């Protein structure tokens, strides 16, 4: 019996095969093209930034320097936030944390290409969406501490954000369930004749779930205005991507469903933005769904609970042939003469300061060690719209 193994494990030296597809290789199809016309991109790689840090080709979204600086600022802030939060977790001030190192462009590019009215149903590594949509860091941190200011009332583990005001749907831990839900949310927009869309993310490991296929199939059948994203960060905890499927590409899964599909360099902000812009416009115009594979790398552990050094090579991220999203956008801006090392260092320092201040403010609403936590009374709320007798009775047993 054949059981695939990763190309390298811990102690090894890993240089994953780089994609030799150059930036600018793929032409951008019309937004009303047939799904099958995207086949080359499903097996290829949409890239904009070349090795000389220049934006090239049909997919160059032509963003101005101010927008690029905004994107860089979001990514730097997310990275600083993640670093701080993981530090706090190590100090015991958070119960759990998940960083998105290496994947910052995946969510920032998506959010900047969409409107805030578009519903996003993410997995647990798209915190970037919240930054772009402008959620308060104090509220985000309060959720992660599960203090009295946690809008989900301390009911979920950290990073399971919910923010209805920003059309960011509550994250659930079961992986993949969000795909058919996003299709349903998209169908509701279409039903009302609105041109908003739904967008959802899952990891390449999760693409093995039935929900991934339900989502693609239902999206295809009803031509739902949605963008479905597989974040291929190569690793599902310790499970290498080659155990998630037997094929060469996750984007290629969309082609037999007649869903427009493409693989995108997830380290290239411009490519991520351009692909989402295309897919979003296609969905808005009623031409149906798109499957995007974000080809990226999980730069750190799965979560605060695992140690990647015991299951994969330690140098893999440094050796990642497609580089780091912050480094690449920074280099591009510098090439344009719109950024420099001093400004970058100042930005990093400013972000760290903001986060330390936000953390301090969040802790005024309670700390993990001492609270205050959401009141015990909230334990029985929101199970139903109104508490039925059996919950009222159980509430009575607790004495609240």
């Amino acid at each position, binding site marked *: 019996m054949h059981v695939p193994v990763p190309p390298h494990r811990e102690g090894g030296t890993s240089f994953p095969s780089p994609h030799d597809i150059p930036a600018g290789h793929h032409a951008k199809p019309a937004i009303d093209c047939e799904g099958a016309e995207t086949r080359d991109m499903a097996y290829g790689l949409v890239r904009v930034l070349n090795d000389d840090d220049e934006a090239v080709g049909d997919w160059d979204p032509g963003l101005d320097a101010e927008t690029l600086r905004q994107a860089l600022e979001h990514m730097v802030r997310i990275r600083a936030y993640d670093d701080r939060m993981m530090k706090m977790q190590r100090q015991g001030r958070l119960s759990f944390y998940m960083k998105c190192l290496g994947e910052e462009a995946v969510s920032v590019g998506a959010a900047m290409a969409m409107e805030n009215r578009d519903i996003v149903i993410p997995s647990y590594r798209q915190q970037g969406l919240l930054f772009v949509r402008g959620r308060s860091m104090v509220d985000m941190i309060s959720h992660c501490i599960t203090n009295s200011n946690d809008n989900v009332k301390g009911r979920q583990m950290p990073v399971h954000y919910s923010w209805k005001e920003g059309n960011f749907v509550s994250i659930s831990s079961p992986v993949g*369930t969000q795909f058919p839900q996003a299709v*349903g949310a998209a169908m509701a*927009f279409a*039903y009302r004749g609105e041109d908003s869309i739904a967008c959802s993310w899952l990891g390449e490991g999760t693409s093995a779930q039935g*929900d991934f296929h339900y*989502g693609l*199939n*239902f999206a295809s059948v009803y031509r739902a205005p949605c963008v479905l994203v597989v974040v291929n960060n190569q690793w599902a905890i310790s499970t290498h991507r080659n155990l998630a499927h037997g094929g060469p590409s996750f984007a290629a899964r969309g082609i037999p469903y007649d869903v427009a599909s493409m693989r995108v360099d997830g380290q290239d902000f411009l490519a991520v933005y351009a692909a989402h812009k295309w897919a979003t416009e296609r969905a808005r115009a009623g031409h149906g769904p798109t499957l995007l594979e974000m080809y990226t790398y999980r730069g750190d552990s799965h979560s605060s609970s695992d140690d990647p050094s015991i299951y994969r090579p330690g140098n893999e991220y440094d050796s990642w042939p497609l580089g780091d999203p912050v480094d690449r956008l920074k280099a591009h801006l510098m090439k344009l003469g719109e950024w420099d090392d001093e400004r970058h260092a100042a930005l990093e320092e400013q972000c760290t300061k903001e986060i330390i201040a936000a953390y301090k403010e969040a802790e005024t609403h309670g700390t993990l060690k001492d609270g205050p936590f959401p009141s015990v009374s909230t334990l029985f709320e929101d199970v139903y719209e109104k508490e*039925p007798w059996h919950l009222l009775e159980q509430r009575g047993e607790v004495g609240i």
Partner: protein
Amino acid sequence: MAQMSIIQAVNSALHNMFERDETVVSFGEDAGYYGGVFRCTAGLQEKFGKHRAFDTPLAEGGIMGIAIGMGMNGLRPVAEIQFADYIFPGFDQITNELAKLRYRSGGEYSAPVTIRTPCGGGIKGGHYHSQSPEAYFTHTPGLKVVICSNPYDAKGLLISSIECNDPVIFFEPKRLYNGPFDGDHTAAMVKWDSHPKGEVPEEYYSIPLGKAETIREGNDVTILCYGTMVHVASAAVENNGIDAEIIDLRTLVPLDIDAIEDSVRKTGRCVIVHEAPRTSGFGAELMSLVQERCFWHLEGPIQRVTGWDTPYPHSLEWDYFPSQARIIEAVQATMEE
């Protein structure tokens, strides 16, 4: 007042709700053009359009997934699962997603989804067209669980379920679709025409969730039942001259505990009847509640009459299906000094 079967009553409820609320949509396998394998959604697509009543791919997990997405984005979906036996591919979406959405989002998100599904046996359906899986769902906080036993209730309860902002699983006992069934499979089929509960207004009305109905008053023993067993228990009592009080629970979650307590305190005896297997069946919950709340009023041990702890059989269906005779035995057992 019209005479309706449960199928027609369900259909009438859907027509009423489609007219009243344009956020109500209905979908499922064969539930669009064809109107459902049991015809419960007949005429909806023709009258309201295929965007409101539509067919789906054969994937219960996908059906549940899109229902949740629609529900969280302003619609009021009524999803049909063709047979309750096939609900399990959607189990994760129902129990981990739909049931918990309001709670886990701190009340920010919810999805007012109604899941309609035919349940129960008595139709020679073998183990994949006869199951009664209600206990899996009563065990999941966040879901409401409803089961009808006649056309009048079917319509009123379904309308309340659709209007409910919490997710509801609405079980339709398929043996009762076309007529009441007293458990005697050798007797000729009876239709709803001659039954008082077959009289159903064409107009909108609702029956509140969480309210049981005492369908027969009596003094010696309380029989708690729902779905098809309401009719089997009624016939057993009538045919044997027992002074029993019969309660059709109608809603399992939230349960009408007052009706149960009042009756058992009066009669001092309790028999619980359901089709589903015994171990961890909903009867176990009912027994616990009666014991906890009425112990000092009980004059005999509480009895259960249920399906056996086997898969639902095909050729031996009538050895599995709770019979009038077994109900009488249980009544006698609880009456013994």
